[in-house]
C-alpha cells in the first residue's frame, strides 16, 4: 500500500539548540532520504527516534523500516539504494560491527548510502562510552569516513556527504562519525538551513543502479570471475580485479571532489572546516604539531594555549577525512615540522594507535622525517584531560631530545597503581 505523501513542512533558516544526534536527524530529514532502516543502539538511538517522530508528525516522507538487527538494517539500505532511493541510517559500536558483512558489499556496489556513527567502544568488557574503535575497524572496506568535532559539523557534513557520495565521479558510501555522548547527547546551537537552499545544493538522486525501472533488466552482483571474460556479442566483461581497482581509484579521486563539495558548501552557507579534509589550528608558526580526531582534537584545541604559555610552539591538525586517507596532502603539510604528537582514541591492537602508524607511513621516505610519537588516550570513554595531553607532548619532546624512544605503546591516563589491592588483578599486574 502506498502511503499518502504528507505535506512536508519546509524548514526556514533558523538556529536551534540541538544534540549531535538530533543534528544528524535534521540533516537526514532535509536531504529528503526516501528510506531509513535502523535498529536501536546506545548512543545512536535518538537519531532514529527523532526520524520516527518527524515521519509521524508529517515533517518527513521517508519509509522507515524498523528492522530486527543492524545486519538487516544495512541490507535493507543496500536493496533500497539499488532500487533507486536516497538512503541513510545511523548506528554505533556493535551495530556497526554487525553490519560488517554488508559494508564491503555496499562499497563494491558503489551505493551512495550514508551512515551516521555515534562512536562507542567495542566489548568486552561491556562499555557504552566513546572511543574510535568502531570507526577504525571499517577502514579497509571502501567507505568514505568523516569525523566531526561539533554538532554543526555533523549537520553540515551529512549534507555534503550525500552530495559527494552521489557524485557520478564517486558513487561511494560514506560514514559521518561523531563521539558518542560528547556530541551525540550534548546540546549546542546548530544553524538549520532553508530547505530550498538545501534542495538547490543537493538535487534529487539520479542513481547509476535503479531496479525500480523494470524495463531495464539488471542482474546485480552475480558471481564474478578472477579473469575478464569475452562474452561475444555482449562484449568483454570485467573480472573482480577490475571492479576492485575501480573502487580504489574512486576513493583516491574522491579527495578532490570532497574538497570541491566542501568549498561549494562553504561559499553557499558560509561555514567551512579547513579544506574539508583536515583543520589546522595555530599551525603556521608551530614546530610541534598535535594530530588528532573528533573529541581528542577538540580537547587538544584547549591545551594549545597552555603549551604556548610554556614557550612551546604547538599547533593542531584535526583530521576530518579518515578514508580515503589524505596521505599526499598530509605529507606536504607536515614535512617541515619538527615534532608530531599523535593522540589516538583507538588502537590497532598488537601494534599501536592507528592514526599514528598511518601518519608514519604517509611521511615515509622524506629526507628529514619529523619525529613522530603516538599515545593512546580515552578508550572506553575515559576522560581526556589537559594534563594528559600536556604530558604527552612533554614526553614526546623528551624522547626526541634524549633519543631514548619508547618502543612500547604508551597509554596516557591509566590508573594501574590504584588497582594494586584489586583481587584477581593478575592481568593488571602483568600489564605493569
Amino acid at each position, binding site marked *: *500500500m*502506498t*502511503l499518502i505523501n504528507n505535506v512536508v513542512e519546509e524548514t526556514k533558516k533558523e538556529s536551534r539548540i540541538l544534540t549531535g544526534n538530533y543534528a544528524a536527524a535534521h540533516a537526514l530529514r532535509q536531504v529528503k532520504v*526516501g*528510506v531509513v*532502516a535502523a535498529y536501536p543502539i546506545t548512543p545512536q538511538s535518538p537519531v532514529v527516534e527523532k526520524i520516527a517522530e518527524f515521519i509521524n508528525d508529517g515533517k518527513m*516522507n*521517508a*519509509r522507515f*523500516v*524498523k*528492522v*530486527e*538487527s543492524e*545486519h*538487516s*538494517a544495512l*541490507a*535493507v*539500505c*543496500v*536493496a*533500497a*539504494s*539499488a*532500487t*533507486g*532511493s536516497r538512503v541513510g541510517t545511523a548506528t554505533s559500536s556493535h551495530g556497526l560491527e554487525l553490519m560488517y*558483512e*554488508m559494508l564491503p*558489499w555496499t562499497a563494491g556496489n558503489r551505493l551512495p548510502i550514508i551512515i551516521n556513527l555515534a562512536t562507542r567502544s567495542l566489548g568486552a568488557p561491556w562499555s557504552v562510552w566513546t572511543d574510535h574503535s568502531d570507526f577504525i575497524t571499517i577502514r579497509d572496506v571502501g567507505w568514505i569516513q568523516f569525523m566531526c568535532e561539533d554538532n554543526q559539523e555533523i549537520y553540515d557534513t551529512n549534507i555534503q556527504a550525500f552530495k559527494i557520495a552521489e557524485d557520478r565521479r564517486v558513487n561511494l558510501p560514506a560514514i559521518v562519525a561523531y563521539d558518542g555522548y560528547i556530541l551525540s547527547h550534548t546540546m549546542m546551537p546548530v544553524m538549520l538551513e532553508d530547505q530550498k537552499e538545501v534542495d538547490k545544493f543537493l538535487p534529487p538522486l539520479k542513481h547509476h543502479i535503479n*531496479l*525500480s525501472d*523494470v524495463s*531495464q*533488466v*539488471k*542482474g*546485480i*552482483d*552475480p*558471481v*564474478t*570471475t578472477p579473469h575478464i*571474460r569475452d*562474452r561475444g556479442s*555482449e*562484449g568483454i*566483461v*570485467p*573480472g573482480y580485479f577490475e571492479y576492485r581497482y575501480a573502487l580504489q581509484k574512486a576513493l583516491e579521486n574522491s579527495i578532490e571532489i570532497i574538497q570541491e563539495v566542501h568549498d561549494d558548501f562553504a561559499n553557499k552557507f558560509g561555514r567551512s572546516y579547513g579544506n574539508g579534509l583536515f583543520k589546522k589550528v595555530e599551525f603556521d608558526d608551530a614546530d610541534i604539531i598535535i594530530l588528532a580526531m573528533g573529541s581528542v582534537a577538540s580537547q587538544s584545541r584547549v591545551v594549545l594555549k597552555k603549551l604556548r604559555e610554556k614557550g612551546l610552539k604547538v599547533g593542531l591538525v584535526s583530521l576530518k577525512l579518515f578514508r580515503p586517507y589524505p596521505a599526499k596532502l598530509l605529507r606536504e603539510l607536515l614535512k617541515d615540522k619538527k615534532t608530531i604528537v599523535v593522540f589516538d582514541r583507538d588502537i590497532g591492537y598488537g601494534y599501536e594507535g592507528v592514526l599514528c602508524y598511518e601518519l608514519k607511513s604517509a611521511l615515509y621516505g622524506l629526507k628529514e622525517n619529523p619525529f613522530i610519537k603516538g599515545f593512546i588516550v580515552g578508550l572506553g570513554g575515559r576522560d581526556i584531560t589537559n594534563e594528559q595531553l600536556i604530558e604527552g607532548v612533554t614526553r614526546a619532546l623528551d624522547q626526541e631530545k634524549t633519543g631514548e624512544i619508547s618502543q612500547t605503546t604508551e597509554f596516557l591516563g591509566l590508573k594501574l597503581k590504584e588497582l594494586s589491592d584489586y583481587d584477581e588483578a593478575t592481568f593488571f599486574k602483568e600489564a605493569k
Partner: protein
Amino acid sequence: MVNIMDIPEEEYIYPGTRACAGCSMALIYRIALKALGPKTIITVPASCLTVLHGMQGFCTTKVSVLHTPFATTGASASGIVASLEDKGLDQDINVVAFAGDGGTVDIGIQSLSGAVERGTNFIYACYDNEAYMNTGVQRSGSTPPGAFSTTTPGGKIGSKKNMPKIMEAHGIPYVATAIASYPLDIYEKFSRAKNIYGPKYIHILAPCPPGWGYLPRRSIEIGRLAVQTGFWPLYEVFEGKFTLSRDSKKFLDSSKRKPIEEYVKAQKRFNSLSQEQIDNYKAYITDLWAGIESRIKED
C-alpha cells in the same frame, strides 16, 4: 482451476543455465516466473539459484535480480519494497525473494521473520532441496532425519524444521507448500500469492539428483513419491483457513498413500536408515495427517 493451456508460453529464464541436469529448482523457478510476469524484482542469497543465474555480465532472467549476502534475503526484499513505496511503484511491481532451505530455515530465518512480522508486501519462496547443495551437500535445518550429507556421514540426527508452520505462526495472510513435480499447483499458488497484500510464504520441496542420490531423469517421479507417500502434503493457508491442495486431497485416506519405503529406498541418502527410523517416518506421517484431518474439521 489452472490447466496447462493457461500457463503462458513466454519464458523468463534464458536457455542454457548452469543448473545441474535434472535440477527441480530450475523448473520451480521457471514456472514461478511465468506466474509472476515481467514486472517482478527478484532477490536471491547465496544458493543454487546464484549458480543458475550465471556469471557477471549477463542476466539469465528477463526480470531484474539483486543478489544479496546469505543472511539478508528478507531484509533485501524489505529494502526493495520500501524503495518502491518511496517511489509509489509498489502496486505495480512484485517483489519476490527466492532462497534455498539453508538460506531460509538457518542463516536467513531472522531477517525473514523480521520482514514478515513487519507486514512487508512480498512473496518469499523457499526451494527446499533439504541440504546445502550449492556448497556440496552439507546438512541444513531442513535435512530430514537419517539422511546422509557430507557433514552427517552416519545420517542426520534431529528433525526437519517445519518452516511453513513457523511462518504460519507469524500470522501472515498466505502460506503454501508445493513441489516441483506438480507445476500447475506451483503456477496457481504464485498467481494467487501475487494478488494478496502482505507477506506471502511458499515452501517448495525441490528434489536434487546429486544431493539425494538418484538419476537426473527421476526428479519428477521422486517428487511425486514425496506427495503420494504423504511425506510432503500440498496445502495452502489463506487468512488462517487451511485448504488441502488438489494433488494431496486423496491422501487424506491413508489407504491411498504409498508406503514410505518407496520414497526413501529410491534415494541413496537414506541408505543407512534403520527399520526403527523408517518406523519413525511412518509415525511422523500418521501424526502429520491426523493433524491435517482435525484442522480441516475445525475450519
